């Protein structure tokens, strides 16, 4: 396969070859796989067949990639309703692994993999890590949780497949993480961005400056994070902080990844077909417009998923990437359509709050938003942790910090909010996904 000139100018890893597939060839491959996966779902998964029949569509209608728009969406509720095995397309004899996602309400959702599915997943993860600039010889500390969560094992097999040295430390036990990072000469860390921030903070308390360690790459995902958070991480450690994207329903991590240019995430389109739709109407949006990401698994056998509504808000990044990959890029996901809340008629995303907090010098992003209703009026309070960097023995200094935060939030959100300074122990530390919003409005009157 020919590799574009641009690609040779950056670290090119042969495992990334499929990322440079010429576009016409890639579209042809996608169409063939789409036809197969729709057929497989129709033939083998009764709930999906019934859904297609109700919508008046059959697999033979897929003659081009655009035809997928006629097919029904799949939502998280569909996976929950068919708990645990109702959407499997393979007999259990062929299913070699199960994972389950954390159920925030009620039952979790269960996902299945054949050996071939695991191979595809590993391939996508190998390419993800290569895309972030990892290679053989890297010492990778994998601080994603091992277990039912897809993050741990996904990154693990990807890093092994790449030929890197994996330290399967899993999440938690922060002091040990830091000891290992330092003593083992770790060059890359995989974790949620909020946990890595926690590691930086704790390392500081232990008198370790991360900038002096050989760490060079951070592979961060599993929760939305902002560009300002990236700058914060990159200035307090020397890592290139790369954003990766994925979800258990589709495969786990490995759906899309940034390359070293960090300007959008390349979707591994040979395995996952992306669409961007209007979250309220479900209509496909013109290229470049912001909407909800919808994904179809093109290679999944055990559990084919058609047009999955991710709830993640993004847009296609137009034009080619400097890295030369032909894979389309999506913008970094900083918010979800179901994260949004409305306060006194104003739409607010937690990511906006983060931007405002970071704009105030010295504030690190450990915060939680609490919504309450007082005498029929919605109130928004942002609880911000006081850190050693901003703490002063003078009341006046803390009050002016508080005032600055209120002002910054007001500027970004256009709505008056309260800011409460809290002790660091006040907000629960996440070792997985950070919980940013507590909505108590249903409990109040």
């Amino acid at each position, binding site marked *: 396969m020919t590799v574009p000139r641009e690609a040779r100018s950056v670290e090119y890893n042969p495992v990334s070859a499929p990322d440079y597939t010429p576009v016409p060839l890639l579209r042809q491959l996608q169409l063939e796989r789409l036809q197969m996966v729709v057929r497989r779902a129709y033939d083998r998964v009764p709930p999906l067949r019934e859904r297609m029949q109700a919508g008046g569509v059959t697999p033979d209608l897929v003659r081009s990639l655009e035809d997928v728009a006629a097919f029904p969406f799949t939502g998280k509720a569909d996976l929950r309703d068919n708990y645990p095995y109702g959407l499997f397309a393979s007999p259990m004899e062929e299913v070699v692994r199960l994972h389950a996602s954390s159920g925030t309400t009620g039952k979790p959702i269960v996902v299945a993999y054949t050996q071939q599915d695991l191979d595809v997943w590993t391939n996508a993860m190998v390419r993800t890590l290569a895309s972030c600039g990892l290679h053989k010889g890297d010492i990778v500390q994998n601080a994603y949780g091992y277990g039912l969560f897809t993050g741990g094992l996904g990154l693990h097999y990807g890093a092994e497949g790449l030929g890197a040295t994996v330290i399967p430390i899993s999440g938690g036990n922060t002091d040990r993480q830091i000891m290992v990072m330092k003593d083992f000469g770790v060059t890359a860390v995989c974790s949620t961005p909020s946990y890595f921030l926690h590691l930086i903070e704790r390392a500081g*308390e232990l008198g370790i400056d991360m900038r002096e360690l050989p760490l060079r790459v951070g592979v961060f995902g599993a929760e939305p994070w902002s560009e300002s958070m990236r700058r914060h991480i990159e200035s307090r450690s020397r890592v290139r902080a790369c954003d990766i994207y994925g979800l258990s329903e589709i495969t786990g991590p490995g759906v899309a990844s940034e390359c070293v240019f960090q300007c959008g995430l390349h979707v591994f389109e040979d395995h996952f077909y992306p669409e961007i739709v209007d979250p309220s109407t479900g209509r496909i949006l013109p290229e470049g417009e912001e909407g909800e990401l919808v994904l179809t698994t093109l290679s999944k056998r055990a559990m084919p998923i058609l047009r999955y509504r991710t709830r993640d808000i993004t847009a296609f990044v137009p034009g080619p990437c400097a890295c030369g990959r032909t894979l389309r890029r999506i913008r970094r996901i900083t918010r979800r359509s179901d994260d949004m809340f409305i306060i006194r008629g104003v739409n607010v995303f937690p990511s906006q709050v983060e931007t405002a907090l970071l704009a105030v010098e010295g504030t690190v992003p450990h915060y939680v938003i609490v919504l309450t209703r007082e005498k029929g009026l919605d109130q928004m309070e942002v609880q911000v942790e*006081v*850190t*050693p960097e901003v*703490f*002063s*023995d*003078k*009341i006046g200094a*803390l*009050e002016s910090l508080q005032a600055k935060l209120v002002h910054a939030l007001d500027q970004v959100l256009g709505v008056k909010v309260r800011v*409460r*300074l*809290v*002790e*660091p*122990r*006040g907000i629960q530390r996440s070792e997985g996904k950070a919980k940013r919003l507590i909505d108590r409005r249903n409990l109040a009157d």
Partner: protein
Amino acid sequence: MKIQQLSLFLENKPGCLLEPCRLLAEDGINIRALTLADTREFGILRLIVSDSRRAAALFTERGYVVNVTEVLAIEVPDRPGGLVHLLETIGNSEINIEYMYAFPSVRSEKAVLLFRFSDPDAAMARLQAAGISVVESVEIVGPGGRG
């Protein structure tokens, strides 16, 4: 003489003072002086203790935000007008008193005042020039303390 003062960030809620005091008690650290500055939502507990380094480590380990600052301990006569001379000495300068608190001296007829000045070195020089006694650390925290 500059004395190490610990400041602790506390949320203003019932019971919040108990835990830090208990931590010190369990470790045999004596509180020599303290003051609590409060607002509606939060407060700052300022402490002079018998072993400030150990206390700071103890608090940090428990997740408190701690700040160590230097304050000046100054003795004044325990009688009407005892403070006035001192304030006059500082008053006609650019030095600002950020905050202050007092406790009775171990010696009789004196009161000890703890000052957080905007410029502690300038304040100390000025006070010493005026013959006002700045108290040694050992007199506040005791001989066993490492201030």
